[in-house]
Structure formats: structure tokens, C-alpha cells
């Protein structure tokens, strides 16, 4: 067991995967010699050579498209999109190709590939370094979508994603790279090395895709969250003194509906939180699913707390970000409702 930041955990997962399976190749912009702008691949080129870990031209469609070809050949590409905001040029390759290949060829060709991308805001990155595009992936049949909230899960989920025979979108909440951020941007962040969730086994292990985790047990209200929002919800629950059950979804697709249903049936109330813009965000799907499956257990309307339907602003970042105050309001609303 070692204390790792999320970055170190991700790097370690790459390392173990490359060590274990020669088919794993890693590439992306600035990923090779330099080791990635967030350093998630640092040291890999040196250890495994430039044919296993290398820089790519600045062309996201090319990165994913070449990855699909490699996966069709039988390798296991793990590619980095420098920021999730830059995945759009690759969207056609992801949606029309990676996601469809197995189905349209009836399994003649497959696409075992991981597409990693730092996601989310809270770093004064402005509208093109802050986005959370998960709903644009969950709508696409054929993709799995994962977002870890701590180093231990980041490593185990990434290894599971690399093992997975299908394309996996791996969203890394960059605000959590160095420590759990609870939304109080005016307070110092606890680094992972001082946090128990920074305890990561150095061995190879996987955290299964499709399984949520109860981040905080409670009886009064179910909170569905993922990534950074898990900690913001925790802070809000502590501060409001609400006995909230907070579920860290970890995998958005396939979704752990059992865990969700079980909790909502117990609490009768539900809050859905994400950083992405509200309309057609993944929270809409969660809300729809919960009301379809737990309608007769619901004692109040499900409340969504999300980013606003605006681009992610630079200076007004903390107005956009769904922080603890907004979640506390939602507690009031859903508990009184």
C-alpha cells in the first residue's frame, strides 16, 4: 500500500497494464517524452520505449481513428485527449466507429480501447478546459463511460477499462488529481497524501465497471453523484447535518441501477448532481430512471443540482460550479417537499 495522488494512481495503472500485456500502447498529445500535460504518463516512454508510449500529432480524430485501427489489429490502445473539451473533433470516430464496430461487423472486428480525458472545471480553465461531456457519451450505444472519484478507484477502474473488450470513455475529474475538492474554493485542499482514499495498493487489481459505491451511508435522502461532486455532496451533507446517502456512481454506463433503486426505496428522496450543464445532462437520465423505478417510493420531486446552461465561464467559475450551498438548498427543498 502506498499513498498516491490520482495522477500517480493513473500512471501506476498504465505501468502495470503495459508490464502485464504487451498489446497495451499509450499515446496522445505530449504524452510521450514529456509524459502528458498532467504528467499521467510520465516515465512510460522511458520504461517501455517509444513504440509503446509516444507523442501524437495534434489531431484528436487521428488519435482515436488510429487507435481504432490498432484495436482492430489486436492491440489495446490507451489514448489521452488532452482535455475533454477537445474530444469533439474525435466525436465522429468515437460515435460512428469505435462504438459501432463490434455491432456492425457482428463481432468480426472489435475495439478494445480506452479514451482518457481530464474532465470538469474549478481550475479557472475557462470554457475550453472545464467541460464535462459525459452525457454526450452515455447517449451513444456501444460506449462504456467511467468517472472515478479517488486514486484507488482511478487505478482499479482504469485497469478494468483496459481489460474491457469494448471502448471505454474514461473521464478524469482533474480537480481531484491532487486532492479531494469539496467545493469550498476559498479553503485549502487536503492533498491525497493526507487522505485515506489516497491509499492505493501497488499490486495489479481492478474495480469492476458497472458497480457504484456508497460514499456515505444515510437514511434521509439519496444523492447520486460522481467525480468531484461526491466530495461537494459530502461537504454539503456534513454542513447541513443531513443524513444523506451519497452514491458514487463510478460507472455511468453500464449504470448500477440496483444500488440506486435500493437506496431511493429506502430514503424516498433523491438529489442528482453533476457539473455539466443541466439540459440533457446525465442527471436527466438519472432522474428519469429513478422516477420510472421508484415512483411509488418518492416522497418529493427529484431535484437536479447541476452547472447552468451556459458555457463554463472564467471569472464567474464559482457561480457556475454547483457548490455546497446549492446542494444544501436542494436538501432543504427535497426534505421539505
Amino acid at each position: 500500500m502506498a499513498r498516491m495522488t490520482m495522477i500517480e494512481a493513473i500512471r501506476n495503472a498504465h505501468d502495470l497494464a503495459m508490464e502485464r500485456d504487451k498489446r497495451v500502447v499509450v499515446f496522445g498529445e505530449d504524452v510521450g517524452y514529456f509524459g502528458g500535460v498532467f504528467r499521467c504518463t510520465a516515465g512510460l516512454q522511458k520504461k517501455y520505449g517509444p513504440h509503446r508510449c509516444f507523442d501524437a500529432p495534434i489531431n484528436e480524430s487521428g488519435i482515436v481513428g488510429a487507435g481504432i485501427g490498432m484495436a482492430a489489429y489486436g492491440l489495446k490502445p490507451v489514448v489521452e485527449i488532452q482535455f475533454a473539451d477537445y474530444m469533439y473533433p474525435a466525436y465522429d470516430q468515437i460515435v460512428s466507429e469505435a462504438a459501432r464496430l463490434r455491432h456492425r461487423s457482428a463481432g468480426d472486428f472489435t475495439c478494445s480501447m480506452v479514451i482518457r480525458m481530464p474532465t470538469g472545471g474549478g481550475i479557472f480553465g475557462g470554457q475550453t478546459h472545464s467541460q464535462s461531456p459525459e452525457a454526450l457519451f452515455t447517449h451513444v450505444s456501444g460506449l462504456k463511460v467511467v468517472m472515478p472519484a479517488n486514486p484507488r478507484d482511478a487505478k482499479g477502474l482504469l485497469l478494468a477499462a483496459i481489460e474491457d473488450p469494448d471502448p471505454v470513455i474514461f473521464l478524469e475529474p482533474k480537480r481531484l488529481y491532487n486532492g479531494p475538492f469539496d467545493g469550498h474554493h476559498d479553503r485549502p485542499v487536503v492533498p491525497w497524501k493526507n487522505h485515506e482514499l489516497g491509499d492505493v495498493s501497488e499490486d495489479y487489481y481492478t474495480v469492476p465497471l458497472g458497480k457504484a459505491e456508497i460514499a456515505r451511508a444515510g437514511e434521509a435522502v439519496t444523492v447520486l453523484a460522481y467525480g468531484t461532486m461526491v466530495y461537494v455532496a459530502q461537504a454539503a451533507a456534513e454542513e447541513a447535518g443531513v443524513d444523506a446517502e451519497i452514491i458514487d456512481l463510478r460507472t455511468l454506463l453500464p449504470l448500477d441501477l440496483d444500488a440506486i433503486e435500493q437506496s431511493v426505496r429506502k430514503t424516498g428522496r433523491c438529489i442528482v448532481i453533476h457539473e455539466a450543464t443541466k439540459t440533457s445532462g446525465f442527471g436527466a437520465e438519472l432522474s428519469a430512471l429513478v422516477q420510472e423505478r421508484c415512483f411509488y417510493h418518492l416522497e418529493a420531486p427529484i431535484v437536479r443540482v447541476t452547472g447552468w446552461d451556459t458555457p463554463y465561464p472564467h471569472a464567474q467559475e464559482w457561480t457556475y460550479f454547483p457548490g455546497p450551498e446549492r446542494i444544501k438548498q436542494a436538501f432543504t427543498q427535497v426534505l421539505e417537499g
Partner: protein
Amino acid sequence: MTEPRPLALHVPEPGCRPGDTPDFSDFEIPRAGAVRRPEVEEAPEDMRDMAFSVVRVLNKAGEAVGPWAGTLDAEALRNGLRHMMTLRQFDERMLKAQRQGKTSFYVQNLGEEAVACAFRMALEDGDMNFPTYRQAGLLIAGGYPMTQMMNQIYSNSADPLKGRQLPVMYSARDHGFFSVSGNLGTQFIQAVGWAMASAISHDTRIAAAWIGDGSTSENDFHAAMVFASTYKAPVILNIVNNQWAISTFQGMARGGAVTFAARGHGFGIPAIRVDGNDYLAVHAVAKWAAERARSGLGPSLIEHVTYRAGGHSTSDDPSAYRSKDEFSAWPLGDPIDRLKRHLITIGEWSEDRHTQAQAEIVDTVRSAQREAEANGTLISGDKPSPRSMFDDVFAEMPPHLREQRQEAGY
């Protein structure tokens, strides 16, 4: 300074529209045998001339001439002729089947049979093509069962793609034929990725990418050029310039004013234009490019100059946008006629043998069709099970899809 004149938008127009007389006189075609054959090791910057000419082997007299001649013996040429004739016959039957409602859609290869058929013979087993919908010749020449192709076209119970794909969007991994995508251009960079993977794995297999003239405009064409040249991927980048992209002529993709082959130059990729209706020339150029790739010299770009003699697909009527006489005016002729003529010229074929071969082919295709139709067509007989529609979205079916399948009643 003088007052600048008002600007105007230049919108390219083809030389010839319905009612006009086709005129290909500004299409410069070198004599067969006239174009040099560079060594595969020659530096890309020393062979830029190859992108502005047209490699041709068969001359008007039906002889094979020049430095590109001689890559195939008579037996191989007769096979090639049979492949092309088979493909044409296949097209004819399937067009008819579509008109009879037995399937929804079809894309024919008329006039450009030499390109895929000859190219296929320059590859080795294990190499991988990333084709468009108009490279059925790769399957025919590669010995893929025609019945299987038809099963796919009919979306019947034996369809290897289980009814999921539009007709002609074949997939045949074991025959070096990647799953055809409905989205243009995407597969061009995938081919490069496959080739990179082969290089990463210290394999000896190479990839071939395919794209149409119109689709070179797509952005992923660029991705392929950047990646292929940067990593020296062992890939052959094929552009099939059949002059048209549905109703849009090659000038709208900036063809004509400059060659498509010349796109390679900005990346230091050697590029060759070839007479796409000359079976021997296509084969020779393909072999050259395959040798480059397999020797670790990296990618080559081939522009196959040909003509789409038929409609774009069964949904298209070309008489609305081009002259009906264009194909007869097309200066590179018909690939089947030209190879036939050559074989007769060298005494390896005859009109009688041709007639007999044609009859055999008609028979073979007909019986393949009978066999396929025994498995059903889109409108009658057996069909792939709707239940199977939920398979293969993922390797393992997740709970929500299992639930949906149940809801759908399967």
C-alpha cells in the same frame, strides 16, 4: 493605390452537364509505357513528377509496354479478367434484385472493376484493406464466397452481419476486408492505425486504405496523411478518382486543377497516378507500393484514375446532373475490354473462350444467388432474428440491454 475591384466567388463547374457534349480533351494522358518506374528507395522529393502523370501499361494495340509491364503471367491475367467479369455480373444481378425489391439498396462497381480486382492480387494473405462501399472487387478477387456477399445484401438468415448493416457494407476479417462504414473517410486513418499496430508489433503485414475522390475532402483524409507520414506507417493510401461523388464532380474536391496524388507532396509521401482502367498498371503500381510499405519505407499514395460508369447507388439517377454520353467519351475505356484485348493480343485468350467464360460466370453467379435466396431476402423468407439486434452492442450484454430486449419481446 487603385480602387480594388469587387471580389466574386468562384464556384467550379464540370465541363459537361446534361445536354452538353462530353469533352475530355484537357485531360492529359501519356502514352502507355511512357512513365518511368522509380526504385522504391527513391526519395519522395525526387519523384514528384509521378503525381502529375499517369502510369499506363496497356497501349491501344492491346500490348503491355514500358517499365511497369510484366508483373503478372498469363494465367494471373486470365484470373483477373474472370474476377472483373464476375464482379460485373454480380453487380448486374444485384441491381436487378434491388429493383425486384429483394433488398433496399445496392452500389455497383461498373467501369472501375480493375482497381480493386487488380490491387487485391498485389497483397499477401494477412494484409488488411479498409475499403469503401465500392471495393467489392477486393472480395471477389480474394475468393470470398459470393453467396456470403449476397446473404449480406439480402439481410437474410445467413447474413454474416445479422441484418444489421446496409447492403454492401461487408465485413470479412479473414479475407483482409475491414468492416465498411457508412461514414466517409473515417476508415482512412484507421488503416494507418492498423499499419502502425503492425509496425509496433514487428509484424510483416501491411494495410491498404481506400477513399473516393469526393471523400478526399473529408477531414480524416488529413489525419491519415499526417499520421502515415509522421510514423512512416506501412500503408498504401488509395484514392479512387472516378470523377464523381454522387452529383458532385471532382473539381469540387479540388480535383482537375491539381491532382489528388499531389496531396501526398505536402507530407513527403510518394504519390503515383495510375490508369485505373488498366488492370496491369494498377497491379504494378500496387506491387510497388506494397514493396515500399513492407520494406519499412513507409506510406505511398496511389490515385487510381477511373470513371464511375453507373449511378452512385440505386438511389441515384445520374442523368439529372451529367451527360449520358460521358462514359462512352471517357478516354481510358473499359477495364474488361482492355484486359480481354490484351490477352487476345498475346494469344492467351479468344472471343470464344470469352463467351464461354461469360456463360460460366453467369451460371456461377446465378447459382450463388439461388443459394443465397434460399436463406431469404429482405422481403421474404428467413430473416435474422430481431433478438440478435441486442447482441454485440457490447461483448457482454449489460443489464439495461437485457431488460430492453425483454421489453421488446425477445
